[in-house]
């Protein structure tokens, strides 16, 4: 079964005279465990595509199925159910400023209900991301790279079936980028997580299973590497 199945997807912003169509007839399938990189010029529609697949925006025309759930006409409850099975890594960290690193990460777990091992699981993933000593720090006292790693921990802690990431390594230095990518790759092979990542980082592009290129709202290239 395809994890993501898109056929004839269009998307427009605005209405009336100011309508701007930004996606044109996107057709695409992503399989389980694939690590896919999405490239393209600024404004080509990468973020728009990600927000549609992540159920953060309503689908207008075309057929989209994510994790077997048809998104056409899906109600908010159905979209929430999908979002819980998905991990988001945004370009900005979007951490809650009143919560510590651990509390922020726990938010990614608590959405499935409070479980006894939650605290320990949050600690483990922060440990993997080399944040063990900043576990009780609030975001204001963390560096940009540390905040981004906390946000990544929050996305990964709930064992998502898909990860949508939009330039997640932009705020990270070389070592941390390598660390994060290695972690995402490891999850992909160990748990069969599918990853769709917008990036321009050549190191990541090199290690991808598949590279999609967008231009002017269309997928212009689909290159399988392995």
């Amino acid at each position, binding site marked *: 079964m395809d994890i993501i199945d898109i056929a004839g997807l269009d998307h427009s912003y605005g209405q009336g005279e100011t309508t701007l169509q930004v996606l044109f007839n996107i057709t695409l399938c992503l399989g389980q465990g694939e690590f896919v990189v999405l490239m393209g010029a600024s404004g080509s529609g990468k973020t728009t595509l990600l927000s549609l697949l992540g159920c953060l925006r309503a689908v207008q025309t075309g057929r989209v199925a994510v994790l077997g759930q048809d998104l056409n006409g899906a109600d908010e409850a159905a979209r929430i159910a999908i979002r819980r099975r998905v991990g988001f890594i945004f370009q900005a960290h979007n951490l809650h400023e009143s919560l510590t690193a651990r509390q922020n990460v*726990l938010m990614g777990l608590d959405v499935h209900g409070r479980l006894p091992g939650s605290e320990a699981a949050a600690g483990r993933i922060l440990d993997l991301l080399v944040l063990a000593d900043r576990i009780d720090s609030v975001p204001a006292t963390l560096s940009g790279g540390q905040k981004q790693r906390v946000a990544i921990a929050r996305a990964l802690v709930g064992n998502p079936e898909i990860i949508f990431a939009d330039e997640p390594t932009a705020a990270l230095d070389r070592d941390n980028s390598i660390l994060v990518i290695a972690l995402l790759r490891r999850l992909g092979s160990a748990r069969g997580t599918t990853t769709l990542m917008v990036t321009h980082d050549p190191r990541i592009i090199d290690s991808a299973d598949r590279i999609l290129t967008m231009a002017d709202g269309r997928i212009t290239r689909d290159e399988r590497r392995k």
Partner: protein
Amino acid sequence: MITVVLARVLGRQPIGWLQLTHNRTRLATALAGVAFANLLVFMQLGFFGALIGSIAIPYNGMNAEILIQSSDANTLQDGSPIPRNRMLQAAAQPGVASATAVYYGRLEWKQPDGTVRALDVVGIDPQALAFRSPEITAARGELALADRAIIDRRTRNVPAALFREIEAGHAYSIEANSHAITITGTFTLGGGFGADGYLVVSDQTFLRIFRNRSPGAPSYVLVRTLPGEAIPAVADRLRARLPDSDVAIRTIAEAVARDQAFQTTQKPAGIIFGFGTFIGALVGIVIVYQILATDVADHLKGYATFKAIGYPPRFFLGIILEEAVILGLLGFIPGLLASLGLYAIIASATGLPLEMTIGRAIAVLAGTIAMSMISGLIATRRLAQADPADLF
């Protein structure tokens, strides 16, 4: 510590608590605001309670079970005089032990500094036991003499030294409607919102002070029932026998209830206190709304992220209600303490019976939490602005 307890209670991380405590200045402002609203409400309710309580004081001092008033009377002060004959008629009814006429008038008592105190003057038959006060009973012989009076030692805005002098045996003369009256003793009653205090005189002296009043027309008649008689039954009998065109017959309890209902709904003081309570609650709602709405606005990014992660709308409602309840609870405590202090100060300064009751404290606490939650519900409208589509 509190975080752990709250996490247990809520079954999730206490995000509302963490948000509130993250910004200490805002929390302090919010709590001061809630405490202030509580103080306003407590003051209004305190005055309201004092009004209710002070209305009952003179009634409770009456040595009677039934009161015969003018049919147009709402309070002890506002009725027309009634025919003295009603006293004789009442006394003749079965079940009645005695009946005595009481004259009431308002007197302006000029002070040496030119200001004026309002005294409620009560004229009684020195032979009868119109009031329960042992001090009044003991002074009956003295009052039987012409132009003698005793004064309520709780009369407001009169130097306490004056009462000590009188109690020490130094009679004090005042001019009452151009008539010299000698105050030879004191008793304890306590003023209300109307007059500053009470003056008790004999009916003869009363008629010399109030020369437009006639001996045939007292203000009310106090009726004592025989022991063992059912008071309402005696009152019914009196109603049946006495003409209801000029008098109304009420048990003391009925008269108190009627007076309280009248003064709290028809008189400015009662209406102002009721309105003040409403304003206090409104101030609280506005302050808590402002704080919660600002808090939501400050955390829109975080809320949008939680929406993206898959938290349902009721989760956000829960956070805001959590904040509302915390603000209500924590703000109530300083509000209550400040009110207790102010009650004590005002009670000692005015002699008004301002008292905190457990029932009132619980009612205000419940009202505060309800008020905070209403504010929270209004503030949730701002949540719609947290759109996860803007996050990428």
